């Protein structure tokens, strides 16, 4: 494969959107060509910056309220065409019905939102730690693909011993570990590499029965699972289904060596 061809493909390659054969040829070329490798690095840096820094605009609260009102209108039964003279009662009943509908709706949406919110803060914090680590040179404090090196390093610095497993066989290579502060608590972070993606997995003793949940924050996926008495929180820019499968695999007790 020549530089011209690689140049045309480096953008879809950085997105993980080229087929496996093409990917291998590109990888081989990038290993031998410094100029193309630099282009690839620049592209990854740009992608990381866009994901971490470009503004993600949230719907303003007033807009949300207006949309909910729209919905409440749809919920209230359309009143029959009023007769020639204005009918005060119809309006009153209509208003009351709309009010009831709004209350019911608020409750339905509210209960969904409470669960969503509960984890949103944690997810946002995890994503912030992840992007900071990837952008800085503090991604790894103990660099090793050997679980028997990473585990003792972490255990020596924490009051618990997180299970550490290399998953290279399944396409997730353990590349090291570090310590982070998440949710005001010192936690073990395992760093894995999947294709060109970096995955951070925060492991801490299970405090509550954390449900297996998934969030997308600023384009990053946060997937959570429990197992081995630990709470596992994985953050990465890989696709949500891949990350969920991975974290659930990590946390599954029957998978222990």
């Amino acid at each position, binding site marked *: 494969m020549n530089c011209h061809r690689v140049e*045309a493909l480096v*953008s*879809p390659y950085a*997105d993980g*959107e080229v087929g496996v054969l093409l990917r291998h040829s590109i990888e081989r070329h990038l290993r031998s060509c410094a100029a193309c490798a630099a282009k690839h690095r*620049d*592209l990854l840096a*740009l*992608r990381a*910056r*866009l*994901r971490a*820094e*470009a*503004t*993600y*605009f*949230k*719907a*303003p609260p007033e*807009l*949300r309220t*207006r*949309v909910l009102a*729209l*919905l409440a209108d*749809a*919920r209230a039964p359309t009143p029959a065409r009023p007769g020639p003279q204005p009918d005060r009662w119809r309006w009153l009943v209509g208003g009351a019905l709309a009010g009831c509908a709004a209350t019911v*709706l608020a409750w*339905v*949406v509210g209960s*969904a939102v409470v669960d*969503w919110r509960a984890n949103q803060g944690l997810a946002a914090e995890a994503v912030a730690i992840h992007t900071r680590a990837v952008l800085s040179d503090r991604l790894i404090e103990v660099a090793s693909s050997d679980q028997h090196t990473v585990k003792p390093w972490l255990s020596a610095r924490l009051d618990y011993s997180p299970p550490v497993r290399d998953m290279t066989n399944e396409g997730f290579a353990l590349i090291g570990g570090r310590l982070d502060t998440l949710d005001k608590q010192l936690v073990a972070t395992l760093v894995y590499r999947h294709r060109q993606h970096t995955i951070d997995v925060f492991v801490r003793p299970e405090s509550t029965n954390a449900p297996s949940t998934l969030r*997308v924050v*600023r*384009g*990053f*996926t946060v997937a959570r699972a429990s197992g081995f008495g630990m709470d596992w929180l994985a953050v990465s*820019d890989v*696709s949500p289904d891949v990350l969920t499968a991975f974290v659930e695999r990590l946390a599954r007790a029957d998978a222990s060596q």
Partner: protein
Amino acid sequence: MSEDTRFAALVLPHLDAGYNLARWLARNPHDAEDVLQDACMRALKYVGSLRGSDARAWFLTIVRHTFYDWRKRNHPPEMVPDDGAAGDLTVDPSAIDPEQAALRSAESRLLSEAVAQLPLVFREVLILRELEDLSYKEIAHVVGIPIGTVMSRLARARGLLQRSPLLHAFCAERAEVNHELSSS
């Protein structure tokens, strides 16, 4: 399930995604809110036809269509060509704070500004890819173009960004400021 219950369950969770797209396409909060509200009304009307899987891509498709209709009504393309020059950015070098933290946020602002100045066809694929994390296939579906076109537009969008004078101007500023800081 009635239409409004379906809407609450399937579309409401993607309100932020819809607003983010509308905001990046329209490039101002006012128009973005109009577009999103309009899109919600359409979504409520057609939510019955949404089958199974991806409510987010479905809703984003509606938001995008609504934006283009709105744009046709309000800004005939021959009058306001979207050549990406319409942003109202002013770079005032004296406003750059020598603190690293401030530099970083100014830098982020310029990055967002550079994205906002991309021509519409490139801007939309970039937002869908980097901020909404859609795959090429999903983007092709939302925008209604072949996957090959998604690929070339994204590559072009990134090329334009990397060459954007906004990013380069800033790098030069920063190099200068860093130099001054280290020499003082």
